[in-house]
């Protein structure tokens, strides 16, 4: 057998193994994260919580089942959604610096949320109106981008990116106006919303996020191969048989759903959507069949770990999770970038 073919086979094997490792690591990280928190719950007590045996106190039960576990799952789902959306958008734009924020969904969601804070409606309908507003804002932004952008229907992705930049700037100025004219109280709420947090996680939100993640996977998974082909350029992909417009539409809709839902509940959590897909590519190579699930696992773990830090490092106080995503992800990212041959050895 030709050594190059052996190399290639080894490479495929390594990709499979690393992906399996991530898939195993993901639940392990989630389990470990649920074992730690401000309220100490020992292994024996954890066992009792799951088996129902013994007599754990009501508070411990409430902390574990109603606060900690939904929060860990919430963080995993938000991180996974942001990362999956990021992987799709980066593949679509063939741009490693592309971020789901580029299609305007984050700024739109922020605008929707800030509008609600501005008018003081954030607690309406049991707090559910705020995520709905944020989600709607995110979607409006994507639709406006689609309507305004000729390049959406034809032409290059550069136009789409530039239109996204312009739309983001526009929404940023409206956001700035709201921030400027908001009352002190509203201003503080807005600021904390834009920092992002998993602190208000609830089971109902976990369920909603799970549904959105499932829809996102359903839309993105069949586009893994077309996204590979798109790496050769739009026109070449079309020659290979890719329905470029359909791929674009599906990826953008998926990204908007994923980021919209995640942002609506958790606020704007940056960095994961940008870096998790990169980490996935550095570990697994460029094929989307591996990058998409890899990014999903990495993004989920990254946010679970960051949120673990947010809720334990300064306990009983909370840290802003946005600070920690960057603090955990960035050094790891730099280390991987520095390694001369992380994948293509």
């Amino acid at each position: 057998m030709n050594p190059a073919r052996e190399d290639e086979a080894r490479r495929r094997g390594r990709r499979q193994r690393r992906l399996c490792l991530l898939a195993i690591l993901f639940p392990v990280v989630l389990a470990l994260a649920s074992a730690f928190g401000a309220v100490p719950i020992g292994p024996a007590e954890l066992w009792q919580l799951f088996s129902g045996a013994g007599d754990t106190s009501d508070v411990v039960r409430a902390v574990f089942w109603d606060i900690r576990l939904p929060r860990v799952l919430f963080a995993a789902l938000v991180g996974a959604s942001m990362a999956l959306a990021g992987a799709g958008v980066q593949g679509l734009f063939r741009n490693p610096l592309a971020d789901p924020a580029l299609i305007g969904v984050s700024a739109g969601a922020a605008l929707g949320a800030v509008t609600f804070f501005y008018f003081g409606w954030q607690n309406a309908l049991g707090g559910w109106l705020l995520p709905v507003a944020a989600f709607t804002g995110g979607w409006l932004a994507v639709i406006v981008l689609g309507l305004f952008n000729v390049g959406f229907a034809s032409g290059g992705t550069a136009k789409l990116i530039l239109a996204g930049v312009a739309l983001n700037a526009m929404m940023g100025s409206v956001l700035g106006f709201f921030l400027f004219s908001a009352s002190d109280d509203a201003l503080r709420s807005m600021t904390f919303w834009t920092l992002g947090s998993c602190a208000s996680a609830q089971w109902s939100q976990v369920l909603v996020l799970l549904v959105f993640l499932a829809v996102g996977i359903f839309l993105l998974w069949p586009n893994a191969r077309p996204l590979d082909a798109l790496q050769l350029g739009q026109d070449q992909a079309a020659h290979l048989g890719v329905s470029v417009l359909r791929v674009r539409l599906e990826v953008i809709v998926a990204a908007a759903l994923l980021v919209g839902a995640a942002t609506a509940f958790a606020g704007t959590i940056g960095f994961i959507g940008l870096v998790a897909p990169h980490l996935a590519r550095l570990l697994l190579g460029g094929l989307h069949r591996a990058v998409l699930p890899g990014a999903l696992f990495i993004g989920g773990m990254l946010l679970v770990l960051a949120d673990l830090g947010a809720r334990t490092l300064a306990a009983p106080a909370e840290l802003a999770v946005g600070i920690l995503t960057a603090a955990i992800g960035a050094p790891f990212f730099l280390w991987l970038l520095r390694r001369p041959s992380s994948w293509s050895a």
Partner: protein
Amino acid sequence: MLRPATILAFLLCALSTRAEAPRLVTAGSAVTEIAVALGLTPQIVAVDTSGQAVEGMGDKPDVGYVRMLGAEGILAQKPDLLLVSGEAGPPSVLGQIRAAGADVVIIPNGYSLDDIDDKIRTIAAVTGRVEEGEKLIMKVESDVHALRAATANHDGERPSVVFLLARHGGNLMAAGRETAAHAMIQASGGRNICADFNGYKPLSAEIFAVTTPDFVIVSESIGGDDAQFLASVPGLGASSAGGGLRVIRVDDAAFLGFGPRTPSAATQVAAALRQP
């Protein structure tokens, strides 16, 4: 201020009346101040960051910023009762704490000196300290009377005042209407020159182009002497050179908190405003 002897008396009283005192977590500086003034110090197991500055609270666990509380961190302190000011949140976290079996009482904020009585009354009622509460209310009310007396026989025009808040990064924000600072300037007998906008706005030199204030109120935490500070304020350097402008430094937790110390802080400012 309460004397240690008074606190001790309250403490003995508390121990004698209840077998098991509820464990308290307080958030919001006014709420914490009131709780301490009611003699609840031994029962307080944790306070928010702003509460750390309150007398005797420095070594209590810090549950973080009042708007960014965490459910599990607070529950780890095994509280029976949470006393939080109106801005505390997020709401869902308060809900989770309630669901885990701790009582949560939200003390509404208000920018009026009369609201202080309501806060005290509520906190006293939920902690079973009605008697101490009434005493504290009487003290606060006598402070309010002193303040009214200090500002009542004030002749002529009210002195013009600007309240400046230093945000991190060194940029200054001026307090407009619907801020605690605005209410306090009014209560102290001053006139806020920034009453034509709402909330805190970044300070621009133009504010002083229309009206030059007689007084600048800032937090006592701002470093440097008055001349240095005035030189650093855009638009004030020129007018302050004349010497007509004076700086009043306040303890912002007392001055802006609408807690038990607020009326006397206002009286001090009122006195400073009336100095020729």
